[in-house]
């Protein structure tokens, strides 16, 4: 496309982001500040993820973008189209064909491989932000690995509700050192992050932070010995493909109370139906 650098961002900005990415990969789970740029989409729509994608995208890459697991929602379609125009890279909706996957709030059902990169859009990188308002203090807590407070939140959940009530953005320990927000993916997806073969990159545009999990890194969801972590999912099978082992969304189908559970990962659901 005329008038734009490859993948929209100028090369200096990409170098700056890549430096932050290298540091983030070197210290798994640690939040690295970076000079987040204005992007042609509003904060909260994936300005962090889109900058990370722009910095890692090469001419031979194939890009997939998902939003809540779906390839066909506004956000996913726009970002895919954006890189199709500004970088001219191939785009796909099939997880297996993609080399770079930008995602909002889901990890694909299909297992990712070592030659793939997954880029998460992150609204709030600080896992302790609801518990400790001061960023100076949370930085100190990360530096000293002082994470008792996060467990206090889990304790309060069990004391009041009888179980840990976090269903998304479930805090994890990365490489037994840093407490990390996995971005608002469902807790159901947390186990997929553990020892994932693909490189996982996280970009928070408004908060100006980048962090990463290198391939094959241990990622553990916080829990108690007597209240272990449990992934939450609907018990119903998918109304379209019949899958029971995928994460489901409840969809309202009409205004007379009609509803059904369908796979949140549209690509996974379509492939299952095609195969049947």
């Amino acid at each position: 496309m005329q008038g734009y650098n490859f993948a929209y961002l100028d090369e200096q900005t990409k170098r700056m982001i890549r430096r932050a990415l290298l540091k983030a990969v070197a210290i798994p789970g640690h939040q690295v500040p970076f000079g987040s740029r204005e992007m042609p989409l509003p904060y909260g729509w994936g300005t962090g993820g889109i900058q990370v994608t722009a910095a890692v995208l090469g001419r031979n890459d194939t890009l997939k973008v998902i939003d809540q697991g779906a390839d066909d929602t506004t956000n996913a379609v726009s970002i895919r189209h954006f890189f199709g125009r500004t970088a001219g890279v191939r785009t796909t909706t099939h997880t297996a064909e993609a080399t770079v996957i930008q995602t909002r709030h889901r990890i694909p059902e299909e297992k990712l491989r070592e030659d793939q990169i997954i880029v998460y859009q992150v609204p709030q990188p600080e896992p302790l932000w609801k518990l400790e308002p001061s960023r100076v203090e949370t930085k100190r807590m990360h530096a000293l690995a002082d994470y008792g407070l996060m467990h206090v939140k889990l304790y309060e959940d069990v004391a009041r509700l009888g179980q840990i009530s976090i269903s998304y953005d479930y805090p994890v320990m990365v490489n037994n050192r840093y407490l990390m927000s996995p971005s608002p993916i469902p807790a159901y997806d947390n186990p997929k992050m553990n020892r994932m073969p693909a490189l996982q990159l996280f970009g928070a545009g408004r908060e100006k932070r980048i962090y990463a999990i290198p391939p094959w890194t241990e990622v553990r969801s916080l829990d108690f010995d007597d209240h272990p972590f449990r992934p939450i999912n609907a018990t119903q099978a998918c109304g379209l493909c019949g899958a029971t082992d995928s994460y489901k969304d409840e969809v309202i189908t009409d205004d007379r109370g009609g509803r059904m559970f369908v796979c949140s990962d549209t690509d996974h659901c379509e492939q299952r139906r095609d195969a049947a």
Partner: protein
Amino acid sequence: MSDDPILSARGLTLSFGAIPALLNVDIELYLGEIVAIVGESGSGKTTLLNVLSGHLAPRSGIVTYRDPDGAPHDVHAMPSPMLRGLQRSDWGFVHQDPRRNLRMNVSAGGNVGERLMAQGARHYGDIRAQALDWLEQVEIDADRIDDLPRTFSGGMLQRLQIARTLVTHPRLVFMDEPTGGLDVSVQARLLDLIRSLVARLGVAVVLVTHDIAVARLLGHRIAVMQRGRVVETGLTDQVLDDPRHPYTQLLVSSVLQA
């Protein structure tokens, strides 16, 4: 157990601008004893407590802490992860205002359990059992365990703070006017509680107070401070019954007799 002091300070000096807060202060503290630091407002009591507990660095002088293995550590030279580790396990700090130490939006049980979880306790049932045990020890009803501290009275908050501090069985506790701002009958019960807990657990306590009666009741030894200097030290009864320094004499004679 060794006979060396658990905490010793030598030649502590610190001034805020032209105001001397500490002048060449020496102090020693042994396991199982309570040292009371008394003096009027502005005499440097709280500054001394902050320096001893590592919150404030002195301009000169050294504070040495002896760990359970008997190894000495310079409090102001130790790496901050180690100091933080001490502050959340081996040491405790009881503030005059319990709200500074407690999390007001976290239940009583969560408040007591936090230090355990910070130390790595990961079994909910154990944490809750210990929290219940400690609430009982500080005379808070077991059925208040899931209540928020803001529904507690001032005396209960102070007792909750003590439970939260002592749950990890610290060896060294700093107390800054623990009975300040409480009415007399609540104060009496709290003093009784502190005395029995400290005696049973065998912890060492540095107690800062302006109340001579509190010092007499709790302190084994006493240090009287005036304008940043320790003007008199000794056994509490000795010092208070037979004060030598004119300032101590003034302090003792100005206590109201009920």
